[in-house]
């Protein structure tokens, strides 16, 4: 029987993060993945918000992961009457030009290349990766998990198992670690992938996501709160259309999803003028895939209290129910929880104690993580159920604005500020890592093209017109900032520590300030066209610059 220090189940978004860190700490680590090629069974992902990259694993932040388009915000369409074309728009949540799209709100990515990139980094760090291998059972001795059994009948022993098997949690449920989640909290996502010429995506979408919200009787989207409205994501040369709905309603009734999804898709694509006239003539259906995820687990106290660890095992990401209820995005939570799990695993292995009592540190840190807790417990998606019940347009406007408009900052700012201060307290140099990340990712988007047949093209760049003077100034500026931060590190750390309690006032402050900020944003949008040349110059600079200018100064980048 083979023996490892750590066995990680699943090479999705979280698995490679945990595996890499354990291997780097010197532990013999095996990652098992059931698909033949990493990522080909992961079908969600879509937009990964900026905070995942800022506060997530260092190798992703400082690396060069595959992204398909930066995102500068969300346009919410509240469809009052689809036949009459009566649609209200809330486009308050957008990063203004000239900062957009280089300073992005998030990044769209296909899961397969992204997970594959993460797995490659893990393997480079010494992780042993085995694909086409399904874990069918957790091995237990005296109630403690001591390894796994694969579909080939092989038994593999591990001092600690990190379970990133995904939302169904078959192994965790099978081993009695947690219960199966009820269908009311699980949403099934039905995703259509359309090919579209890049120029058309640029013209129709630019860098902005489109969300559509409507009433049940319009038959264009799931009942509010029991799924999303409709979400449309622009990629490099394609567009994703996603509709999703919970598997059961509040009364336990299971809707006929097969019939409803067909109906929603047909009604929306034929009824919405924007889709019918702008998208349909230019788009060609390339793929249709579906998968479910645990969207409301965080809002249910009983489900939230289900164990995320046991003797010898830690559950991460979707397997631990850490899907973002708020933004329908599980990637940041998968990264954060995998990072925490690896830290605790390393401590446990060094202490020679993998008992549930020792591993409870994991649970404590997950519960103390401001972004995880905000994203899984924020109630705006659930509030849409009340808007549906009351059929109140005013409520719908408010909840959409508070969840997916600028109003969201009145609820997420405390978590963001707390994370920023905690990260700076840990390492003040992270500030320049953040500053370098945005232009590097934008440069990547401009030049890196991902060949989905498995290969990857080399960036084609014209070196002849590099803005050498501006680059030198920027390079010197970054170095100066690095030196100042290194010199002032104790002071910066102390200041961040002192300010941390202040973070809790960020939400109330934003509630007061938002009306003013929104008025300013409206004014700014009028000025934006005049700033277009400045935006173009910034984009041109990033596009022509030597990417080394934006490279992270520390080791570990990709």
């Amino acid at each position, binding site marked *: 029987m083979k023996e490892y220090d750590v066995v990680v189940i699943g090479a999705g978004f979280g698995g490679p993060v945990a595996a890499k860190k354990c291997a780097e700490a010197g532990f013999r680590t095996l990652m098992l993945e059931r698909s033949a090629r990493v990522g*080909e069974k992961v079908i969600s992902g879509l937009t990964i918000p900026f905070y995942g990259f800022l506060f997530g694993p260092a190798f992703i932040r400082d690396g060069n992961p595959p992204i398909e388009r930066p995102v500068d915000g969300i346009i919410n369409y509240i469809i009052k009457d689809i036949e009459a074309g009566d649609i209200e728009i809330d486009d308050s949540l957008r990063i203004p030009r000239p900062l957009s799209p280089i300073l992005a709100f998030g990044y769209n990515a296909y899961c397969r290349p992204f997970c594959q990139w993460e797995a490659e980094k893990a393997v480079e760090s010494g992780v042993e990766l085995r694909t086409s291998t*399904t874990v069918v059972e957790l091995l237990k001795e005296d109630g403690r998990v001591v390894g796994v059994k694969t579909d080939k009948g092989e038994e593999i022993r591990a001092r600690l198992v990190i379970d990133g098997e995904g939302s169904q949690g078959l192994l965790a449920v099978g081993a009695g670690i947690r219960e199966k989640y009820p269908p009311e909290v699980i949403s099934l996502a039905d995703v259509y992938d359309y090919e579209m010429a890049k120029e058309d995506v640029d013209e129709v979408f630019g860098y902005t996501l489109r969300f559509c919200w409507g009433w049940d009787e319009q038959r264009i989207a799931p009942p509010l709160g029991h799924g999303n409205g409709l979400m449309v994501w622009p990629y490099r040369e394609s567009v994703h259309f996603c509709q999703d709905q919970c*598997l059961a309603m509040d009364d336990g009734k*299971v809707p006929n999803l097969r019939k409803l999804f067909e109906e929603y898709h047909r009604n929306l694509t034929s009824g919405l003028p924007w889709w019918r006239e702008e998208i349909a003539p230019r788009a060609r259906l390339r793929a249709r895939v*579906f*998968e479910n995820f645990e969207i409301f687990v965080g809002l249910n106290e009983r489900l939230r209290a289900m164990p995320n660890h046991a003797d010898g095992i830690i559950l991460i990401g979707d397997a631990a129910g850490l899907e973002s209820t708020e933004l329908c995005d599980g990637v940041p939570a998968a990264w954060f929880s995998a990072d925490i799990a690896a830290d605790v695993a390393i401590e446990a292995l060094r202490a020679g104690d993998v008992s549930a009592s020792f591993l409870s540190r994991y649970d404590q840190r997950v519960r103390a993580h401001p972004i995880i807790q905000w994203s899984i417990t924020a109630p705006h998606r659930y509030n849409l159920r009340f808007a549906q019940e009351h059929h109140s347009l005013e409520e719908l406007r408010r909840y959409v604005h508070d969840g997916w408009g600028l109003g969201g900052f009145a609820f997420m700012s405390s978590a963001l500020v707390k994370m920023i201060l905690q990260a700076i307290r840990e390492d003040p140099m992270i500030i320049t890592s953040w500053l370098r990340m945005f232009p590097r990712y934008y440069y990547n988007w401009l030049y890196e093209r991902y060949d989905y047949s498995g290969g990857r093209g080399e960036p084609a760049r014209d070196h002849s017109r590099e803005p050498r003077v501006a680059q030198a100034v920027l390079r010197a500026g970054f170095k100066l900032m690095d030196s100042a931060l290194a010199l002032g590190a104790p002071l910066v750390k102390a200041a961040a520590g002192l300010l941390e309690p202040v973070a809790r006032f960020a939400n109330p402050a934003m509630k007061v300030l938002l009306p003013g900020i929104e008025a300013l944003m409206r004014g700014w949008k009028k000025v934006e066209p005049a700033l277009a040349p400045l935006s173009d110059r910034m984009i041109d600079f990033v596009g022509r610059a030597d990417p080394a200018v934006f490279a992270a100064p520390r080791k570990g980048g990709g």
Partner: protein
Amino acid sequence: MTRTYEEFPGVEWVEGAGQFIRVIEERCSGCANCVKVCLADCYEISGKKARIRDLDRCMECASCWYVCPEDAIAFSWPPGGTGFRTDWG
């Protein structure tokens, strides 16, 4: 061998998956929840019981497993490397 289906472009199914979903007949109440949620049309009701019609287009979402009130569906992942695969998720 790899299979494709017109209604799910961009997805391939690699054979060899076997019977990774099973209906436990004595538990099944014939409520048809599994039929309602399966986008791949894997189930049918016959003799007031759910039966697997065809697992060929299953994307392994396990929605059937979630919605079965009687725990009559035994779901397990197909053996490694088999089942569905896509580049477009």
